[in-house]
């Protein structure tokens, strides 16, 4: 089943002389349980595609469908995209984006409570995930009190917490050493296999490409 479907997506930043064409008629299809890589040089439009898919960056034209719901068709369709993100998506951006005033455990549990899960249950599930990521010993700490790699793992735990149908990861290994990067990649692989999620991983790191079901190459806003 197609969970992510992008048709002829075009994104042009700016106007007139400063115009940048970031995406040109991009097409992308990702199935349930599929792990795909988005590979391309810097400035090729990878992040633009990802942020468009999770509806925090408005495309110029084209069409985006998530889990059978059209969210963009030459304009936002009016679907509550925040509810879509909350219920069906997990996102990991390069900046981790943890909430600094919440502990590691609370950062992960928050996404569950936002989905109406009770406090107790949410924390229980969050702790399970942290154990799975070998982060359980750090659960009481604040994001500022853990290392970069640990933050990355918390961001991954948070992205996995609501059992997303779609997981978008923007260069989740860029700041990590090879060994750590491999661990993260294996976790994402595991998610697509065990939880049947459609996982899209953006990277320009050629070392990480083994094990993907499919690899899309992107250059100058065009997907090959």
């Amino acid at each position: 089943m197609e969970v992510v479907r992008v048709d002829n997506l075009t994104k042009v930043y700016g106007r007139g002389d400063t115009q940048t064409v970031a995406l040109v008629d991009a097409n992308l299809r990702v199935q349930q349980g599929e792990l795909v890589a988005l590979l391309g040089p810097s400035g090729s439009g990878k992040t633009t595609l990802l942020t468009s898919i999770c509806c925090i960056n408005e495309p110029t034209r084209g069409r985006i469908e998530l889990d059978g719901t059209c969210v963009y068709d030459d304009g936002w369709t009016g679907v509550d995209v925040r509810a879509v993100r909350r219920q069906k998506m997990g996102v990991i951006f390069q900046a981790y984006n943890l909430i600094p005033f919440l502990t590691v455990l609370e950062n992960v549990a928050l996404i569950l409570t936002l989905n109406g899960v009770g406090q107790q249950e949410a924390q229980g599930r969050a702790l399970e995930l942290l154990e799975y990521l070998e982060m359980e010993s750090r659960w009481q700490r604040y994001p500022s009190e853990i290392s970069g790699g640990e933050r990355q793992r918390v961001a991954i735990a948070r992205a996995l917490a609501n059992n997303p149908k779609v997981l978008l990861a923007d260069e989740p290994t860029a700041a990590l050493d090879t060994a750590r990067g491999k661990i993260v990649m294996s976790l994402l692989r595991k998610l697509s296999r065990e939880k049947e999620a459609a996982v899209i991983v953006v990277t320009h790191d050629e070392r990480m490409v083994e094990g993907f079901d499919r690899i899309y190459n992107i250059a100058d806003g065009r997907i090959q």
Partner: protein
Amino acid sequence: MNLAVRDIRRHKIRFLLTCVGLGLLLTVVMAMSGIYRGLINDATEVVDATPAQIWVVQKDTRGPFAESSRLPEDIEYSISAVKGVRRASPVSFQYVQIQRGNKPARLFLIGYKLGGIGGPPAIAAGRTITKKHYEIVVDRKSGYAVGDTIRLGLEAYNVVGLTRGMTSPSGDAAAFVSLADAQIIQFQLDNDAIRNNRQRVIATFTALNSMNPFMREKATNKALAAAENSHFANAIVAELDDASLAPEVARYIRRWNHYQVFSAEQERELLLKGFIEKSQKQLWLFRTILVVVSGVIIALIIYTLTMDKLREIATLKIIGAPDRTIVNMILQQSLLLGVMGFAVGYVVITQTYAMYPRTVLLQTLDMVVLFAIVVVICVLASILGIWRALKVDPATALSGG
């Protein structure tokens, strides 16, 4: 987990200091409400404490408080005889400046006829006045205790009892003496002044050469007696058989054309108009300004707290938090600030109100109304921050580290 509280914990000092500042502002607002209630209370204290429905004063005056009024004390008898009047009694009011220790102090001296109306309404310590002379009952606010003596005019008076909360319309401690003593204090002259006056009267009559000497001496004595007569009161108060008779009795006495008559209700109005109308407007103005300032402070601090976490708000949007979550977080912070400020204000005013020089009456209703206003202000003050938060583009969270 409560996002509002979690975020505030990062800014503990800033938040707590704001709470204290806001609390002190609200203390002043509470104090002003209390002072206003105190003003009303003080202004009408004497009228309310006097069990009379009718106040008879000098013709063409609005006495005895708003204007001076003087009338012979013996008209109490004509007034007592009016149908519907149970009893009438002369009263006098005057301010006296005394020396207590080495500080000057003011007393509001009330003279009343022993056994009549207008004496101390309740004795908090000691006893009431039983002797016609040299006994005084003062309010505790004056600082005197039973057994002290107070020098008034030429004589010393023994404090035999204390009242609680009896003040003049302007808040000075009240004191009670017999009408006879009050007249002495008000009118009695020292020996030099008496000699002076006598000489003037005698000189006037001596100049009347046409008068026969026998008649002249008689007239001189009469004139001296008249000049030294001090049997005046400032008002005659009357207790009626039934309060509803007041308009009728007042109309009847007015027809004599010698006196002005007010009902107790009219006296109250005269006092409220004369003593607190201006203060009331002033206090309203100050309170309004302070409440607006409180609102501005809350709005500013909530706005800066929101500006400090725009990135986190953008992140909340990315992970799919609904607007409700974000609005609640900001609104709760604003309300928390207001409620804590109110609590600080409440604690401070309840611990300090007794130390104010003016009577401060804290009323539950005033507190409840102020609390409601604070809540409304908090809601309004958070609008700016909420507006800014809802405008934040979730993409903000992606740029930078």
